[in-house]
Every structure is written in structure tokens, then in C-alpha cells.
């Protein structure tokens, strides 16, 4: 397994957010983490990369227990994280944003150069010296993914990549994710949009109120409209 999460519990102060979260991601797989707003998707990702201080459980990445490692070591090990809020450095130019993400070449992962990323996201190549604060939401979303890919991750946690984007940009996003998959990057993508998830994912987990309540292939999920309606539709 690429990534195994077992018995993950997280707290913000006195509030208990995640309850015994567990899921697995195989080598080269795209796994969707589905759930409504506030279900705990982002907290799950933040907990995996160590940005939530109060957490317990076990996180195995490429066979190593990384639970107790600090964030930067987890990421340097090849586990990339793309936050939901994008968190572009607004004062830095596109190229400088990419430079922050740069990590050395990794043997078991595709090697991303700036030029390769500009080919993946052509919009970005036209604004290399533009400050991140003067970009549209879709451009920022591309930049935040490109920035994480600069670290040559073997697995990427993608938090709601389609949120708030126009249909045209969403299409580009689907292409980009499929390209990443083809290059051999494993991906966990959190989504509210089942349609989007279906286009890219092999398997899916559903999270509701901080608990995993379903796990299976996309076909298995389609066979259970009751689950879909209970946990995903509005």
C-alpha cells in the first residue's frame, strides 16, 4: 500500500473532529474522499501531513510510520499536499511560488521541471512574473497544484480541486489529474462533486461527521444509491 491511515482521531481544542478514520491508497491509484461541507475531509488531509497538532492513530506512508514526523519531513518523504484554500503566496510571482515547492529529484516519482508544469498548465506559462495575488481562482488552483508537484511527490493529497471553478477550468483540472495519474502519481482527492470524482477516481470513501461510512470502487458506490443519497446529495 502507498498510504494507510488507521484509527485517526483529531481534535481542535476541545472539539473532537475525526473519529477512527481509516482508509488505504494503492500504488498509482486515484482515491476519492467524498463528503459534504464540514464532514472532515480537509481535517483528514491536514492531519495526515501533520498540520493538526492534536491527533492520534497511525499513518503509514510507503511502509514507514510517519505519524510522529514533523510536516516538512512527511512532505519531503514524497507526500504532497494541496490545500483547499490554495494558499498561494500572494506577494510572490508564479515562478517564485514554484521555487518554494522545489525539492530534489526522487527515484520513484516523476520529475517535474518548471517547463513540464507550464506544459501541463499552459495558462501559467503566460504569467510567470505575475504576483500570486493578481490571479484568478482557477489560475491559483493550477498554481497550487503545480507548486506541490515541484516537490516531485509520489502521492498527492488534493483538497477539493474543483471547488468554485468554472466548468471549462474543471475540465482542464480533470485532464491535469489524469496526466498526473498516468505519470505514476498516487492521488487522494477530496470532493463534494460526485460527477467530478467519477471522472478521475478508481475507488471512493465517504466521510460523514468525522467518520468513514463507506469504502469501495466507483462501481460499488453506483450500486448503492441509498448511500449516495444519504451522505452526498443535498
Amino acid at each position, binding site marked *: 500500500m502507498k498510504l494507510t491511515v488507521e484509527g485517526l482521531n483529531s481534535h481542535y481544542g476541545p472539539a473532537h473532529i475525526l473519529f477512527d478514520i481509516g482508509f488505504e491508497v494503492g500504488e498509482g491509484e486515484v482515491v476519492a474522499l467524498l463528503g459534504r461541507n464540514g464532514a472532515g475531509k480537509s481535517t483528514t488531509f491536514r492531519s495526515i*501531513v501533520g*498540520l493538526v497538532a492534536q491527533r492520534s492513530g497511525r499513518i503509514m506512508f510507503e511502509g514507514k510510520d510517519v505519524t510522529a514526523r*514533523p*510536516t*516538512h519531513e512527511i*512532505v*519531503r518523504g514524497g507526500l504532497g*499536499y494541496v*490545500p483547499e484554500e490554495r*494558499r498561494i*503566496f*500572494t*506577494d*510572490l510571482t508564479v515562478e*517564485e*511560488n514554484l*521555487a*518554494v*515547492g*522545489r*525539492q530534489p529529484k526522487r527515484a520513484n516519482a516523476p520529475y517535474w521541471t518548471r517547463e513540464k508544469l507550464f506544459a501541463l498548465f499552459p495558462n501559467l506559462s503566460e504569467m510567470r512574473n505575475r504576483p500570486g495575488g493578481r490571479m484568478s481562482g482557477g489560475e491559483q488552483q493550477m498554481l497550487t497544484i503545480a*507548486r*506541490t508537484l*515541484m*516537490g516531485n511527490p509520489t502521492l498527492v493529497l488534493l483538497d477539493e480541486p474543483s471547488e468554485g471553478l468554472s466548468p471549462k477550468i474543471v475540465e482542464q483540472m480533470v485532464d491535469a489529474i489524469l496526466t498526473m495519474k498516468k505519470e505514476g502519481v498516487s492521488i487522494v482527492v477530496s470532493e463534494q462533486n460526485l460527477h467530478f470524482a467519477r471522472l478521475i477516481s478508481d475507488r471512493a470513501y465517504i466521510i460523514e461527521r468525522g467518520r468513514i461510512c463507506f469504502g469501495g470502487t466507483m462501481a460499488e458506490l453506483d450500486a448503492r444509491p441509498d448511500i449516495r443519497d444519504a451522505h452526498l446529495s443535498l
Partner: protein
Amino acid sequence: MAFYVVQFLTGLASAASLFLVASGLSIIFGVTRIVNFAHGAFYMIGAYIAFTLTDRFAGAFGFWGGIVAAALTVALIGVLVEMVLLRRIYHAPELFQLLATFGLTLMVEDLVVLIWGPDDLLGRRAPGFKGAVDFFGQNIPSYDLFLIVLGPVVLGILWLLFQRTRWGVLVRAATQDRDMVSALGVNQKWLFTSVFAVGVFLAALGGALQIPRDAVHHAMDLRIIVEVFVVVVIGGLGSIVGAFVAAVLVSELNAFGILIFPKISIILVFLVMAAVLIVRPWGLFGRPEAPARKTPGLTVNPWRPLTSNERLAALAALVVAAMLPLLAGNYALTVGSEIAIFVIFAVSLHFLMSVGGLASFGHAAYFGLGAYGVAFLAKMAGLPMIVCLLVGPLLGCLGAAVFGFFAVQLSGVYFAMLTLAFAQIVWSIAFQWVSVTGGDNGILGIWPEKWAASPSHFYWLALGVAAIVTVALRIAVFSPFGYALRATRDSALRSEAIGINAKRIQWTAFVIAGTTAGIGGALFAYLKGSVFPDNLGISLSVDALVMVLLGGVETVSGAVVGAIVYKALNIWLVSQTDLSKLVLGGFIVLIVVVFPKGIVGMLEMLAQRRRNASPPGSALLAKPIESAE
């Protein structure tokens, strides 16, 4: 004309060092979010070490090498401080960080006296820049010209460092979003350490470069840090260009202020700072801060008024305290009066800090103003004591109303820096305006009238006033005004959204706290029979902060307990050792690192644990302390 040009150039030369120190402070703040109070101390150590090195090694190489080596040595000390101390408190509230670095400053002040002695040291002149340049009959030291060139050169180097190196890009990224930087695989720890090293290097270089111009002495840290605070408030914290522009502005104002108001030149800087704050509260080149991080008080268990048993216990404690004259001698009673006065001072700061969430680093200004108010009334107008005691604190009220108006426009560290700068300005006026305040000699001979003259009578007076003030402020905490104030502390935005005028509430709290401190000051003037500029000095402001912290910033009764314990300890300590600053500084650092909840906070926590573990009623531990109210 030539004279004014020379004056202008002198100002520019002074700006160089100020810029170095201020830019260092700004860089460190940008990334670590710590306002490094110890920056002035690093500046001072830089000067001392440079003095020693340039003194020992001859020649041009010895001089310039010594300057650079001094700055590097201090940077190394900075790295040590960062790794041992600051790493432990990055997640603490801002107030604790300011206090910890202030504790360091105190320790350094005693240490440099231990190592280099108390006398001013005159450094070597810079080889190659010993002479002066003739400018239309006016002399300009050539070293000043060197400094004038150096300032922009350093600015340029810093610009290249931040724009053209990966390290600079990482630092700029971390200034905006530290967590994201580490989520991209960058080791924050070393980034912080390296940033701290660069910032300290700049401060120490600023100090080292001063030795051909000024004597090296053990009070230069506070002088520079106050100017630096003014510079970063004007220029905008976190902006290097802002630091440069503001350093030039402040230095020029100082250079020309001497010509306009020779006695109180600092007024001019103050006026400019006030003007900038009204127009751009975040400084000329700064940007509006995101809502402040955790303020002290946020983790409080909801406060509750005392139960009737606790009220009885508090009353009993007061009665016991009032019986002291039956047991103790005159010295103990004088100490008792002083402690009672400091209880007033501490509860006034506690009201502002814990209830209002506004940590003032210059609260002594209002204490001292109250004392000076009494002195003016008693000595100049010859009014009776009762009138003086009632009217004198109004000077503190007035000062708080004026300065508070500006201060509450800001929050968090800006608020702390601004209040410190205001206090320092008041101190300078008291120190420099000799014809009115007597300057360093103070105003003497303010003795209480007959009815309050005996130590026991004065003690009862002080104790009574302290009790009234404490009860009054406590009532205010649980009044609608207190609720509104606590709401602005916990979330200014949300409280404005329900119709509270946050700024006005905070301003009112500032005035209440200032007036109360003034009452303490008024009594203090009669206790000591004199007033001095030290009555509004920084060290007194910090005493108050430590009292509140020691008692527990998140508790209602902490200030009272903290004041009693701290003052008693302090009086004892001063009688025991010459190195009181060293001990006190170490003590502050210790509280911040291991004991952040204070005495009452600790006891409450223990009581809470016992209450959870065993049936109610066994929480006896908390009572003796709570009853001190």
C-alpha cells in the same frame, strides 16, 4: 544654510544604525511573528564586543575585522537564544514572547556591567575616517559620510538577498504563510533560526558601527529599542523599505527637533508618529494585520463572581491585613503600604490586560503621571493632601485619555510597542524638562499631613484605597461594561457586529486603567515623599506586567496575589544582591517558559483537577489564595 545641510547629514548618519537595527527587528517579526525586545540588547552587546575586539587588534584590518567579527559573534549568540528559548515559545501569546525577550534584556544589562564595568567606554576612531570634511566652513566627520553611504548599501544588499536568493524567497513566503511553507517540505525550524541570525547580525552591526561616534554604555539598549519601535510603527512592521524611510524620518526629526524644541525634542517625533497612526494605523509601508492571534485571556474558564463564602473569606483576609499595625514595626508597615500601592497598580493593568486584552508595556506612565500630579498640586499650588489625592490622579487620567485614544487604534504587538513608546516619551519629558519637573533630581518634600503621617495611618489609608479600587474594578468586570469589554477582547469583529463600539469601549477601559494607576501613583508620591522620572520608567511598567503574569493573566484575582508576592520578593531581593536585574530577568524567562499560567492559574488548575477527581468540597487549596481579594 550650510549649517542646516550639515544638520541634515548628521541626521542621515544617525539613521544608518537605526535602520540596521529596525530592519533586523522587522525581518525577525515578519517570519517568526515575535517582536524581539532583546534586539536592543543585541545591539548593545555588538557595541561592547566590537569595542573589545577593535581595542585589542590594531590597524585597519583589526578595526573593520573586529566590527564584522563582533556582529558575527552576536549573531551566534542569537542563534543560541533562538534554539534554547524562542523555540519553546513560538506558539505562546505575543505578550509572553515580548516578556521573555524583555527578561533577556534585563539579564544582558547586568551581564555587560559584570563583564565590562559600569563606566562609559570610548571606542577607537575608524581608520581612514578619522578626519572631517569641510563643507562651507562647517565640519562633517568623514565617518558620518561613510555611514550615510552605508545605509542605502545595506538596503540594496537586503533587497538582493530577499529578491534574488532561494532563501529570500522562502523567507518572504514564510512571512505570509508559515504552515504552507512547511507543507511544501521546508524545515521551518532552520528557516526561523537563520532569519533570527540575520536579524541579530544586523542589530549587532548597527551597534558595532556606533563605537567611533558614541560612547558604549549599559543603557544604550533601551534608548535604541524605543527609537526602533517608533521607527517600525511609522514605517510598518515587516517592511524593510519602511524601516529605511522611517529611520531617516525619525533621525531627521531628532536632528532638527533639537533646534526647535531643545528641551523636549522627542515631542516632534511623537507628533509625527501620531499623525501617521491616524492616517495609516499599520505604518507607511506596512499592511493591515490579519486579526490578532490569541490574546491572553482566551483560554479562560468562564469567570464567575465570588460566592458568598469567598466574599466572607476575602473580607476576613482584609481584616487580618488591617491588623498588621498591631503586630509589626514601622519598616514592615512601610513595606506593607508599598505593597498595597502596587496592588492598586497591578489590578489597574490587569483590568486593561486580562479583561480588555490590551497588554500595555508602558503602564507606569499613568502611575507616574498620578505621582507628578500630586507633586505639582502639593508643591506648586500648596493644596491640602485630600485635594491632591483626589485631583492628582486626573493627570494620569488625562495622559491615558490622550495616549489611549491612539493606542486603541492598534492591537497586539503594535499596541504594546506604542504604549511603550508613549511611556518613554513621558519619561523623557520628565527627565529633560528640568525647569518644571526638576529632571533627574525629581520633586522632593511631598509629605503626608499629620492625620496620615504615622506609618500605621498611612498603611490603613493605602490598604483602604487598595481594597476599594480592587472591589470597584471587580464590580466593573461583572458589569455590562465588563461584558462588552471582554467581548471586544475575545472577538473585536463579532462584538462590533452586535453593535458594540469596540474602540470606544477599549478607550474607556484604557482611561479607567490609567486613572486607577494614577491613584496608586498619587499614594506612592506621599509614601516616598518625592517623585522621580523613574516613577514612569520602563522597569516599573515591566514590574506591573510581571505582577499580573506571576499571579496569572487569565484569572481575576491574579493581579492581587501577583503584586503581593512579587513586591515582597523584589524588596527582599534588592536587599540581598546587586544583580537584581539578572535574577529578575531570569525569573521572567522562567515564568514564561515553565509557569505561564501564574500562581493563581496553577492553583485553579490543581483545584479543577481535584474537583474532577474527587467529590466537590475538597478544593480547599484554592481558597486561601482567592481570599486575598
